């Protein structure tokens, strides 16, 4: 019996010891073996995440603004129901979890490793992100947002003006970072300026100017800052300084192409989106009495916007394909019986309806009818800025691999934009250190045309000689713009000429067109909504995203677009001054 007791005792002991050692062993299994620990983070790899997420954020913001400013299609029919709060989730998520979180985690690490260049880039992109968030949503969280592992899950918003001031501070510290001596090696991947610190300083200063110009209606102190920056003149005024993200041609693993190239150039099914009829009409026809003027290198055609064939690619050069089931409005358009909506001004000399002419085929603003199988006829984004096909009137269906193969750019800030900004500053603030409003208008249009016309070469595409606009055509176009400016009798109509050219130069950038439209109300001939006469008050800011309103107990009340204007802090224009 004693023997047995010993056995039991021993068995019990072995069991107990065994269990305990096993229990200790369990701690080992709490660490994820598939990922490194946070302590191993690398500044340059963080910076890559920030740069990449910034592109995504900016593209989201640009598409949202672009659809409201008729560059892209807006479905409608009312402002209150076209978007739902979750339409803006993507922009919010990429801003906070992509750019802001990783930038904030990276900056202290970069500072401790003397990687000031990297932290400067992160701060500059943070500022651009924060300012754009305010532009789009108004008051947004920042000072309480993203505080690491102990994060406040319900961060309160900062007033828009405060956040804008924070963005200016971030830019100042970015400039200091760029200038700080004793910095460690620069970033492994600078996807914007390829390691050129001076260009980053120029970018930060231009961004400061942009933000100050944005608040000019509500903040008188901004004017002195604008003056200061214009006088110093370290601004993006040369295409080599353009702040633009350059996409690649890699089709898969990873898809590195311009996002609109991916949508517009699939293997089958045709173009996956509509371009706004208004924008196409503005480029192709507005200056020519509503007739589409296609530039050609020859004596036959001497007018037309030289950028047209670069901006837009037609899959068909006419409308012979039209049947009522694919394009029901065609028979009532300018080509049919012209039964355009009664609230439209004259078509097509004052606004487009249904189609633009010569095969340009998009959608009217607020046309909420169902989408017919018209993918093979829709006009696609051209070689600029999406890296698509150059329109040599070939009228062929889009293909997966075509033109610039997607090696386009996101034109976040171009030298032409600076020129238009300076033109605006000269006109409305009388700040003329860098030339008059007219001189800067000319500079802007010229810079834009140069940029666009030289783009195919930059992405290795050869354009047929006979389709390259001649120098005479370029001159004719610039002279036409200047003559429009000269014949304008009021500052308001002069501003309209400037902002119209800014609008045309900003193809692919819905961030600035949306800002400009709210700040200046220009271009002043935006196409009216098509399905209903009154789509409600123009959305002066976006809905707060679903992911913000529904998940954050400190979020402000949701907006009521269409019924209220929901203006952001820098917008003191009347509620109904734009439609």
């Amino acid at each position, binding site marked *: 019996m004693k023997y047995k007791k010993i056995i039991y005792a021993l068995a019990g002991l072995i*069991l107990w010891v065994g269990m305990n050692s096993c229990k200790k062993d369990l701690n080992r*299994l709490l660490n994820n*073996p598939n990922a490194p620990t946070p302590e191993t983070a690398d500044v340059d790899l963080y910076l890559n995440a920030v740069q990449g997420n910034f592109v995504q954020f900016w593209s989201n913001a640009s598409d949202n603004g672009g659809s409201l400013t008729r560059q892209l299609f807006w479905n409608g029919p009312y402002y209150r129901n076209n978007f739902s709060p979750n339409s803006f989730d993507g922009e919010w998520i990429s801003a906070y979890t992509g750019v802001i979180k990783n930038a904030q985690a990276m900056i202290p690490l970069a500072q401790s490793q003397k990687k000031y260049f990297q932290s400067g880039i992160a701060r500059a992109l943070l500022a651009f992100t924060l300012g754009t968030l305010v532009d789009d949503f108004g008051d947004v969280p920042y000072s309480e947002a*993203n505080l690491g*592992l102990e994060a406040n899950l319900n961060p309160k918003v900062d007033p828009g003006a405060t956040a804008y001031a924070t963005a200016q501070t971030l830019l100042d510290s970015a400039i200091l970072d760029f200038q700080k001596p004793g910095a460690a090696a620069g970033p492994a991947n600078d996807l914007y300026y390829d390691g050129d610190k001076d260009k980053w300083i120029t970018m930060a200063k231009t961004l400061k100017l942009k933000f100050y110009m944005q608040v000019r209606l509500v903040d008188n102190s901004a004017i002195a800052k604008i003056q200061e920056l214009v006088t110093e003149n370290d601004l993006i005024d040369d295409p080599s300084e353009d702040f633009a993200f350059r996409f690649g041609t*890699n*089709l898969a*693993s990873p898809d590195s192409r311009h996002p609109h190239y991916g949508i517009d150039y699939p293997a089958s099914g045709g173009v996956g989106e509509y371009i706004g009829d208004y924008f196409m009409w503005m480029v192709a026809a507005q200056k020519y009495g509503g007739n589409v003027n296609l530039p050609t290198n020859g004596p036959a055609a001497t007018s037309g916007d030289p950028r047209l064939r670069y901006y837009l690619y037609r899959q068909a050069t006419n409308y012979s394909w039209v049947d009522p089931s694919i394009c029901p409005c065609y028979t009532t358009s300018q080509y049919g019986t012209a039964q355009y909506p009664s609230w439209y001004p004259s078509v097509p000399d004052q606004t487009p309806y249904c189609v633009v002419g010569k095969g340009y085929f998009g959608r009217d603003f607020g046309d909420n009818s169902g989408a017919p199988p018209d993918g093979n006829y829709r006009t696609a984004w051209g070689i600029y800025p999406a890296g698509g096909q150059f329109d040599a009137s070939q009228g062929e269906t889009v293909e997966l691999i075509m033109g610039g193969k997607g090696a386009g750019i996101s034109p976040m800030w171009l030298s032409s934009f600076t020129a238009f900004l300076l033109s605006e500053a000269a006109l409305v603030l009388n700040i003329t250190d860098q030339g008059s409003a007219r001189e800067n208008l000319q500079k802007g249009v010229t810079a834009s045309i140069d940029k666009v016309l030289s783009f195919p070469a930059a992405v290795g595409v050869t354009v047929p000689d006979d389709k390259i606009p001649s120098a005479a055509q370029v001159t004719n176009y610039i002279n036409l713009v200047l003559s429009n400016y000269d014949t304008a009798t009021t500052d308001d109509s002069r501003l309209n000429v400037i902002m119209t050219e800014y609008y045309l130069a900003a193809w692919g950038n819905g961030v600035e067109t949306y800002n400009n439209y709210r700040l200046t109300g220009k271009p002043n001939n935006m196409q009216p909504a098509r399905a209903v006469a009154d789509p409600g008050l123009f959305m002066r800011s976006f809905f707060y995203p679903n992911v913000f309103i529904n998940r954050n107990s400190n979020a402000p009340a949701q907006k009521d677009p269409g019924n209220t204007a929901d203006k952001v802090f820098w917008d003191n224009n009347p509620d109904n001054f734009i439609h």
Partner: protein
Amino acid sequence: MRKLTLLLLGVTLLFAQQTWAQNTITGQVTDANGLPIARATIKIKDGGGGTTAGNDGTFKIVAPANAILIISAVGFENITVPVNNRQVVPVSLTQVTSSLNEVVVTAYGIKREKKALGYAVSTVTSKDLELKPENDIARILNGKAPGVNVLSTSGLSGSGTNINIRGISTITGGSTPLFVVDGVAFDGSTNAQGNFTYGNTTSSRFLDLDPNNIESISILKGLAAATQYGENGRNGVIIVTTKNGSTQKTRTKSEISVSQSYSVIKAILPEYNDGYGGGFDESSGVVFFSNWGSAFTNPPEIVTHPYDKSRLNDIFPQYKGAPYERKYYSSVPNFFRSGNNKTTSINAAGTTGGNLNYNINYSYTDDKGYLENNGLVKNSFGMGGTAKLTNKFTVSGTVNYVITDQKAPPTSDSYGNNASNSSIFGNVLYTPTSMDLMGLPYESPLDHSQVYYRNSNDIQNPRWTLYNAFTKDKVHRIFGKIQAGYELTKGLSLTYKIGYDNYSEEQEYSQNKGGLYTPTGLLRTTSGNSTIWNNQLYLNYYGNLGKDFTIEAYAGADKTSQQYSQTGQKSQQQLVYGLMNHTNFISHDEYSEDGSELNYKKEQISLGVYSFVTVGYRNFAYITAGGRNSWSSTVEEQNRSIFYPNISASFIPTTAFTSLQNSNFLKYLKLRVGYSTSASFPTPYNTRPYLAIAPRVFVSSVGTVVNINSIPNRKPNSNLKPELLGEVEAGLESKLWNNRITVDLTLYQRTSKDQILESPTDPASGYTSTFINAGKVTNKGIELALGVTVVNLKDWKWQVDGIYSINKSKVTEIPADLSDILISGYSNFGTFATNGAPLGVIKASSFQKDPKTGQRVVGSDGNYITNTTPTIIGDPNPLYKLSGISTLSYKSISFRMQWDYTVGGEMFSSTAAALLGRGVTKDTKFDRKTPWILPGVLENGEPNNIEISSSQVFYGNGLPNGAANEVGIFDQTCIRLREVSISYSVPPSMLTHLPIGGLSIGVSGSNLWYYAPNFPKYTHFDPESSGLSVGNGRGMEFLSGPSARRFGASIRITF
């Protein structure tokens, strides 16, 4: 009770006075084959004491020469033997068939008397499992045990299967029951490599079990039964005893049996519209998506050839200007083939005469599904044996090796308006009936790219999909155990068991270039390796405490470690058409199409110590109390240890009260009640922060590769705790009317609180979600099994069994800021956990309803107005389920039928809605010229009076993702003839001249017929399907394919 005791005492005294001379009697208890039965109980009738036989069956007892001995043993019928002045009394017992002393296999393969159990156990034996036309053990179990729900993901051979017991009690955790094979854990998971939108038909790994090698299955439903397994048993336990694992049973002879079966597999297809063809609004073209064209004419109208278009004229000059007959082509029925299943199974059971038993088997299954390129080949080898050693050791072991090789075309979700990704069914079932799918080319002769009839080529030709898109799943699996038992003293034994289950699973998803969805081609391969080590050590004591009490106690410890690792690669941009090899692709990465990582490993360990004791009182009252303490590696130390107690009792009034003992009507009554608890631990790696890394997120135009590290979007929660489950269960078992009626009734209520939920957070916090513990799911239900022996004559026997299950779930206590928790599907169209609603209600866009009348509101264009904000449009949980099994036998001919009846519950059926919306079935073979007025009211409340065309009614207001998705909601009520079989065993007398010992033949069929009255009649839609892959989602189907009907014959010869 006091009266009863006095009565018993009086009886004892009365007989004591008449005591005869006492003799010492010896004997041995054996079974019908003369093999000893261990530990039988020998009692002297009328109160003369008793003894227990030894392991060799021998006993010694002092008894009067005229005494009557009552001998009982677990698993055998009680017997009374008069001593008749003998000194040596041999006792032969017969095995229990359906008597009161039924034995069931409970946790760890321990056999226990059913009457002592305080919880419900259902048992299914080999005769209900083998020689079926179906290979999937879970699908065979469907309808055979109350409370068990089985739902297949597709009718394709080898596709995954959902199985769950007593409803689903977790929102985000696993709900598949634990499979225990021969006493050790067996992985039954489904290792899908992408979500349902990528069309996986990944097999569930219980497919590796061979139904022909199964001796019996016990299903432990409640938590009480599963406590020994720890938290892994919380979803119920399916205990499988294989023939190789059942060698403990004593045997007398060696036997080899060979069986062969063959069955045919047919898809159950809709009946197509042979009156109207492709088009819209009565048009007569054929290149339309819809089948709303004009009526067919005789002779057929000649129309423009669908392949006569500029896009195709160069490729197919033969169709330029060619005539095309607009008629019914029977395209879809011809697309399917007749599949078949061949199964060969050989089993050898041997013995050396008591101390060494062994079993060896091999089986081969070749299953060709109802589509080309769908099939399953399974090779199973197995052996097992038990040796009783002379030194009180018993050792046994099993080892099984299975190779399962499955292939199928992908089945992505579709809504009748193209599929999300390549889908074999998503594009074929609504083919316009005037489209000659089988007679026209499906690929370009130039580059093999897909071609089809639409102008912009925007439907992927289903035949192209069939020959160019593949999923493959190949498994090599080895599982088995070694067990050693040692008898320390009489009644006390120590057992050690080590179980091992390891498989490698190679999966492939590939598509040639030239398709619509992955135009450049795709190849994704993964190789997964799963290992479960299961160590168990337990002491087991069985004995008597005094005269009236029996005691059975277990105490032990176990450790289960689960490891899964996977490597994989995805490649795109195929170089040369046809070859599926990563080197034939240009770009490569390590992410699945849905973005999940293909390379990872995970490991978790669960430790437990447990003890439970059953005390029995005079064979009529039993109480079991026990508990387990578990430690799991997936939570931090402070939350790691969890203790879960359980207690249950059973009471048998028919044994306890003499007044009940002689009733002919009530033969047996058992009442039971129990309370038990369990836990559900989270998946690994959610408590600690880590850094996300991703290589190659961008390649610049000059080839610079950009890599990143970033902070993950899910916030770790260091205080994450397990979900806690508690269950009350009460039941009744009875045998009535001379044992001709058996009743087994269970009522239960299970609550599962502290649900592990992924709480979405404001991205401004830096995170998009974090896991939290919140919310409660309650499941209440009734399970009833009723058996009636209607006829019990010498030659004729008719047994009818009815099974009834009802389960009601309810979600509560979800924090207000988490309005909806998505279970499966899309965030605006899926199944959700919502406070106050049953678990898994379907939310989707709905039709706007008039608040006064509840009628649908019609807009000024005559169409219904859609409410895009998702609302609850259906509850997929059936009201109740009923199964009826009839077994009629005449001599050795047996005829068996199983009918299943599911009542209530709604489902979203893309198939039914799309077939109707596209006008392809006979349901829409009506005069299409008549204008329609949709039932409903106008926005001003007046009845709708706006006429629209039939196309517009069915297409515009009927097709999901165009009209409100509510249009796809149907009631699931369905009656089904699940199984029919006729078998005949040749009587041994007829075989005496042959060298064989037994011969039986049979014909059987499964899923032969069903009728779902609330679905459109000619769609023949089978509501028993799921498009949500294997998981917790139910009640949604996205053109997931028809179900299969199987029937065939089998023969078994025993040597």
